[in-house]
């Protein structure tokens, strides 16, 4: 499990990644995160919805009600142009960060 402190700055990026190819909803995203990280990162509900709220108020995503399925009306999210630009920016930032941090990292071979 990854400490949420380390990953905090990239929660938004992770969510945007799943929206790049099309709209999605909360549970699907959180499930995808768990699967893609092979269970190493589980995004908490409060983290997920804080991020949705932040992304939406920054205009990076839009929310809308999906069709009612099994009596549930889900809130779906889709990425905006600004969101895509922000995602790209964050990716570049990470590549740079990774490069910098890696210079200070020793890999221990056990």
């Amino acid at each position, binding site marked *: 499990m990854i400490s949420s402190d380390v990953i905090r700055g990239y929660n938004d990026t992770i969510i945007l990644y799943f929206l790049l190819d099309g709209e999605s909803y*909360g*549970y699907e995203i*959180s*499930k995808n995160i768990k699967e893609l990280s092979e269970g190493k990162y*589980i995004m*908490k*509900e*409060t*983290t*997920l*919805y*804080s991020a949705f*709220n*932040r992304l939406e108020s920054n205009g990076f995503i839009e929310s809308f009600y999906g069709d009612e399925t099994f009596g*549930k009306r*889900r*809130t779906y999210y889709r990425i905006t142009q600004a969101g895509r630009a922000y995602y790209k920016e964050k990716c570049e930032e990470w590549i740079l960060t990774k490069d910098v941090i890696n210079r200070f990292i020793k890999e221990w071979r056990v």
Partner: protein
Amino acid sequence: METIKNYLDNMFAALPKTVQLADLKSNILSNMEDKYNELKAEGKSENEAIGIVISEFGNIDELISELGIRKEEDINTIPLVTQEETDEYLAIKRKAGFLVGIGVVLCILGAASLILVYQLGEDGFIGDNLPHGAKESLGLFPLFILVAMAVGLFIFSGMHLEKYAYMEKGVQLPISVKVMLQQQYNSFTPTYYLSLIIGITLCILSPTALFITSMMGNDESTYGVVILLFIVSIAVYLFIYFGTIRESYSKLLQIEEYKPKKMTKEDKVISAVASIVWPLAVAIFLFLGFVYAKWGIAWVVFPITGILFGMFASAYSIITGKNDN
């Protein structure tokens, strides 16, 4: 499933009830339910599934700081009360209504007994062996005893209500309690109006006692006053008892005039005037009684004061009320 819902309800209980938050909550709930169902489908036990779902909920403070909201208790100090508290408040209020009602009845009966004893003395039924001055004042004994008992009741019920003073300033009710109280209030309303009708009818009919007895003779009309006061006291008891019960519901549900508000300037003026006028009326009453021995008629000071004060209070409210609008 119910556990998850309750957990979430608790987490959101302290937050303001806005549309945004309700939306957020239902989204999170459906998210958690999806997760729960999938865990169950994977073969996890009920407890395991609930444990995992709740452990993956996170920290509500994260949402709070993200949304820039403060917990409701920080914004205002309106307390959230439980059903036990409202039940106890209603029970105590009902008891207080009973005690205060009896107290007021005792006060009125005190005045009635004063007149009654005086007239009985006049007519030579009692106190003939007493010196003249003592006989005149005999009626004061029941008056003071009854009034003292009444004051005891007022203080006693006031003491009990003290504990629930915060309820009167407006409280927040959980929805379930609010719905229940609303139902109780609605089913109580016909009873209240019935008590009001009976009380008012008694008041209107009470002077007939005076008419009938005054036809029988001048002295007999004094007994008529006693009967009138007795009938009025029953009416007053009805007003106070049922009025208090209604008031307790109104305050909890914040109906009509019981919306929390500050005492307005006119309320203050009226209560200041009341605190002067009523003791003054009592002073005049005692003065007329003791100095002029006019116990038989001195009581009219109270209805006259009541009417005049009522006139003043409503006139003052109307005049000053214009400025507020």
